[in-house]
């Protein structure tokens, strides 16, 4: 079997990952960042809230640490509907231009992001939209728009490079805030920017070997009943993202949790031998030892398990399939690239089982209601 016969959009995207990051880094230059985040507004923001839907929400979860470590501003990543309907209005506009609300929507179309931005603006918060469509409906209602600048011609399918675009954009914003607030020096700023590219190049150089490993794993994992993802904090984004790709690519069963709660809940799932566990475990994170304890429990259950990590294979049980990524210069860079491991597996499983992405072949999904679910008829409500 040749894996080149089983390539779908995620594998194809992995091949242009480096060009994507290069394009985004070039597009979001010093000037673009300065226009989106004037100095006064940076100092005004006593808090930052990142919001979006699906992958965009995960982008916020994944990059929260860079805001904490570099920007040093209290930052929350919030689901769009939680922000637009459930967050207390007392948390918005309590001081001028506070919080700085960063909405993310690559297409700019879904109604909920526009609703978030309008609500934030209504209560006196600052609004910035990260998007690839600067003329989209959401962009019309944002105070500032940061154009990601993804290269054209990305194949239709579950998004990975668009996710990376949002992650890189968020990182660059955090670095600008850190530079302006002088939490990092110009040297550090330049080195951190360079580290994004260095890490990308390093991972992309290993992409072929990851593809080999993923293809081999996909052949044994394609008939599993479900996929269970475990990750903590920023790595929870990588875990959740993997689960989303399962659904988008081949519509399988997924579940997800953190390392602690997994021991209390998903440990009890019936027939563990039919459930593939995917653990994101990076050696520098404060819960690495907890993740190892959890993995010991997984080993006892004899579940098939893959580990995405920056540590050596020898750290984990011998039966686990370990994807070792290069260790980035700054720990907060890991989520930008580590999702590729399962993206590739998901893509190969999809093709090996002959499934059409996004259920485009199934009549149940080919309905007016289904097609309009994100935009059509969705009313905007400001509460």
């Amino acid at each position, binding site marked *: 079997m040749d894996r080149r016969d089983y390539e779908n959009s995620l594998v194809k995207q992995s091949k242009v990952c480096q060009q994507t990051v290069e394009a985004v880094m070039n597009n979001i230059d*010093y000037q673009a960042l*300065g*226009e989106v985040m*004037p*100095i*006064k507004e940076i*100092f005004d923001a006593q808090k930052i809230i990142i919001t979006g839907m699906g992958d965009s929400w995960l982008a916020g979860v994944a990059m929260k640490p860079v805001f904490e470590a570099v920007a040093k501003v209290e930052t929350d990543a919030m689901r769009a509907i939680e922000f637009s309907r459930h967050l207390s209005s007392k948390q918005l506009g309590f001081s001028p231009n506070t919080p700085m609300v960063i909405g993310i929507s690559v297409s700019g179309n879904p109604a909920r992001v526009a609703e978030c931005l309008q609500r934030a603006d209504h209560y006196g918060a600052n609004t910035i939209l990260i998007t690839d469509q600067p003329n989209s409906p959401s962009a019309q209602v944002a105070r500032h728009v940061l154009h990601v600048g993804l290269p054209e011609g990305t194949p239709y399918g579950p998004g990975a490079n668009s996710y990376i675009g949002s992650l890189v954009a968020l990182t660059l914003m955090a670095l600008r805030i850190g*530079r*302006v*607030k*002088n939490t990092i*020096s*110009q*040297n550090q700023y330049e080195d951190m920017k360079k580290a994004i590219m260095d890490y990308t190049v390093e991972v992309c150089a290993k992409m072929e070997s990851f593809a080999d490993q993923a293809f081999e794993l996909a052949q044994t994992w394609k008939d599993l009943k479900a996929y269970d993802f475990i990750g903590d904090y920023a790595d929870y984004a990588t875990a959740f993202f993997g689960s989303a790709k399962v659904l988008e690519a081949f519509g399988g069963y997924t579940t997800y949790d953190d390392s602690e709660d997994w021991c209390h809940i998903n440990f009890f799932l019936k027939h563990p031998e039919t459930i593939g566990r995917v653990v994101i475990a990076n050696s520098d994170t404060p819960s690495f030892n907890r993740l190892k304890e959890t993995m010991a429990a997984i080993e006892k259950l004899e579940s098939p398990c893959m580990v995405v990590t920056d540590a050596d294979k020898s750290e984990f049980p011998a039966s686990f399939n370990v994807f070792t990524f290069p260790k980035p210069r700054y720990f907060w860079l890991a989520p930008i690239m580590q999702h590729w491991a399962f993206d590739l597996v998901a893509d190969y499983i999809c093709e090996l089982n002959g499934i059409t992405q996004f259920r485009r072949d199934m009549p149940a999904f080919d309905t007016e209601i289904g097609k309009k679910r994100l935009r059509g008829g969705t009313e905007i409500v400001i509460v």
Partner: protein
Amino acid sequence: MFYSETRSIQTGKNTYHDITGDMKEILEKSGVKNGLLVVEIPHSTAGVMATTGHVEAVRQDLVNEVKRLVPSRINFLHEESPDDAAGHIKCGLFGNSITSIVKDGKMVSDGKLGYFLMEYDGPRARKFVVAVMGE
């Protein structure tokens, strides 16, 4: 005769660095006995100043006074960062280069003045260039 040399230095935040020794060393290397020595800082947020070489407190006062004159305000038009914008102004006001007269193989200010690379931003990797002309 012309001789020049570039040296590197790692600065801290709003620090100053005595480069008098480096200048003397380069002057000696050049072999020039009578002429001019120029030191230039090829950066826009770091400069050079000459002041008393002996008294630490004087230099600290100088740094404080410069900060007071040009604070890192947040409403500069230049949007890079407040320290960067203030740094450009300090640099413009206090200059990037100093010329010293060389006589009998020595700077005439020898023993009186000290030369200091002033960091207005930092920490950063900086360079300074010393050129000696004469015979």
